[in-house]
Every structure is written in structure tokens, then in C-alpha cells.
């Protein structure tokens, strides 16, 4: 337990509330969500100013969540080679962005734009009340791609 806390501290994720689910709760999180919460993949940041990096920063007005998703793109092939995320929000939001970073890796930018929030929600079995978290992840992906493209235009134009 202590190890996990220190590991989480190292990842800068202590702002998340401690595991809200306990034995006996009527509705619990799906195991996929718990998996992403306990073993988050791709947490971290890229250098925002790196020209190969696209940063998507989105927020959910209802719950005050913030989600940052970054992609690293191979300039020659246009493929996403790596991704990182940092999310402040509920377990579902964190899991959604974690899943998003996993799914964008190794795909072309045009392809990731077709990732739908419903797919993320299905993968995590999100209840209706948490659907907006997956929507946020979809928006984050789109924002990251958009940011990268805009940066390219700027560097090419300059």
C-alpha cells in the first residue's frame, strides 16, 4: 500500500482521491477501469515546444476535470509513435485518457480522429453518468491532433 502511494506520488497523481470503491458498494467500477487506475499507462508529459508533439488540453465544465493528452508524431510517416496523458479528475476520466493514449499509439493521425467516445466507454463499461469522461478523452485526442497540425503549419509557413 505504501509502495503504491509513493509510486503514485512520483507520478504526481496524489491529487486523485483514494480508491473510492470498497467491498459492499452497490455499484462498483469495472475491472478495466480499476486496472487503468492502479496501473496507469503513459502518465507524464512531453515537451510542449517540441515540434513533433501535439498537446490537447480539455476540461469538463460539469465536474471541473482537466485532461491533457499529448502525442508524439513521426514527421515522415504521420504516425503517432508515443503518447502521454495527465488527468485531474475521477477514476473514469483517468481511465478514459489512459485508454486513449494506448489506442492512439502506432496509428495514423487521421485514423485516431475516428476513435469514438462510445468505444472507450464500452471498453470501460462506463455507466451513463460517466459517459462525459469518455467524451472528454475523444475531445482530447482531437485537440492534440489539431494542435500538432497547427504547429506544422506555423513551422512550414515560417
Amino acid at each position, binding site marked *: 500500500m505504501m509502495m503504491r502511494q509513493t509510486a503514485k506520488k512520483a507520478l*504526481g497523481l496524489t491529487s486523485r482521491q483514494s480508491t473510492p470503491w470498497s467491498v459492499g458498494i452497490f455499484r462498483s467500477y469495472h475491472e478495466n477501469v480499476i486496472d487503468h487506475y492502479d496501473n496507469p499507462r503513459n502518465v507524464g508529459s512531453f515537451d510542449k515546444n517540441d515540434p513533433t508533439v501535439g498537446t490537447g488540453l480539455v*476540461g469538463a465544465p*460539469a465536474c*471541473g476535470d482537466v485532461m491533457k493528452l499529448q502525442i508524439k508524431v513521426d514527421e515522415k510517416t504521420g504516425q503517432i509513435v508515443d503518447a502521454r496523458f*495527465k488527468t*485531474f479528475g475521477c477514476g473514469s476520466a483517468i481511465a478514459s485518457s489512459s485508454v486513449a493514449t494506448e489506442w492512439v499509439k502506432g496509428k495514423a493521425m487521421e485514423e485516431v480522429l475516428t476513435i469514438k467516445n462510445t468505444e472507450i466507454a464500452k471498453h470501460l463499461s462506463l455507466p451513463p453518468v460517466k459517459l462525459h469522461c469518455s467524451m*472528454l478523452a475523444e475531445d482530447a485526442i482531437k485537440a492534440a491532433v489539431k494542435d500538432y497540425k497547427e504547429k506544422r503549419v506555423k513551422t512550414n509557413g515560417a
Partner: protein
Amino acid sequence: MNRTKKLVASISTFLTRRTSHPSSSSTLRFNPLATFATNPQTNLTRESLQPPPSPAKPLTILPFSGRAFCSESCDKRSSSVCWNCGFSSEKAAFLFCHSCRSIQPVDDSVDYFQIFGLEKKYELDGGSLEGKYKDWQKKLHPDLVHNKSQKERDYAAEQSAKVTEACRTLTKRLSRAMYLMKLNGKNVNEEETVTDPTLLMEMMELREAIAEADDSKELNQIQSQVQEKLKQWSDSFADAFESERFDEAVNCIRRMTYYEKACEEIVKKL
């Protein structure tokens, strides 16, 4: 397993209660059997027993008289008729009938500000809210209405819940702001994703600072900064709302939501 049963049981009782008790709009065609059994004073032949409202009657043409017909959704402040004594008033009788003092069913046209006798504005004197809340609960709390009929006790429970909800909504600045906007028909769209980079960057950094803060001193410092920002945006909201700059008001509410969330996180850590 037990919990599921309890949940199902409570839901089914709730549903049967709802269906067996008339809502405010249908008090005009109350069930004579129900009142007859519980309240001997009810005079079924009096003017209170009105024919069912004609469904085709549009709300807007309703005259403000005691015998006005009320169609299904009484969301205007039309007159209401007491289910017990038939006393009718122009003002929606909130909670109690002015004539026979029996508890009325929840009337959705009564807004939270009316319950506490407050003006529909953002600035609020917290003390007055608390006092009035206690007064209402003294009259309405389900535990205190033993001597009344089952029907009235049910109404009391509903009214009590509404009063509690009202108090909760009006006490906190953010919910009060959102409620005010709602009353003015300007629903704050919570679904739309926020993409304002400056706002989000600031929030990201704030949340990171909270996450990295080690001791309570640092956290308290951040908290006071956030509280200050909240006050600032709260004032901006008041200003924007008064001047009917509703888009700006929505923006203020957004910011307040984020700051409130940050405060919650700090409190959790402390």
C-alpha cells in the same frame, strides 16, 4: 443482496406513493374517497369539488380567480385550491393552506427563493436562510407531524425534502448562481467540453501545485489564494448577472466550478 432488496423496496414504495397521491395540478379533481376517510371536515359538495380540467385549455388564458381550471402542468403561478377545505388563493399556497392550515402537496411553480421569502438575486444573507430553514423544518419535518393524516404526512415529507434541497442550493454560491441562471432560462451547458487554453493551463498548474504540495502550510496558502479567486469571480458573476451579460456570467460560473473543485481537492488532502 440485502441492499438491492431494500433499494427495490424503497423505489417501489416511492413509486406507489407518487402515483397514489395527486400532484398539485390534480388537486382540483381529488379523490373523494381518500379525503372522506381521513378528514371528516371535507365537504364534498362544496365548490372545491370541480369537474376535471379540460385538457384543451391553454395555460396562458387562465384568469386569476379561485375557480380557475388548471391543466396538467401548472408551471405558472396560477391559483391553487386546497385539497382539504377548498380554500382557494391567488398565490400558490406554499406548504400550508391559509385557511385550514393543512399541508399542501409540492407545487413546482414555487421557486427556492420564494420558500425563504428572499429576493431573486445573487447576494444573500446566509443567516436569514438558516433561521427560516429551521422554522420550516419545525413545521414540516416528518417526525413532527404524527397527528396529521397519512396524506399530509406524505406531503410533509415531500415539502421537507424540497425545503432541504432549496436550502442546500441557495447556501452555496456556485449552486445559487446556477439556479439563478436556470430561473432566467439560461441553462449552463454542462456537456460542452471546455477548450479555453488559458483557463485550462491555469487549472492544470493549480491542480499540479496541489498535488505536489507537501505540508498543510503550503496547502492552506494555496487554499486562501483560491478562495480569493472565488470571491473575485463571484463578484464578477453578480455584476454580469445584474447587467444581464449572460455569456460572461456563464464564464464566471465555469471558473467558479473549477476553483471549487480545486478547493475540494485541497480539503481532501488536508
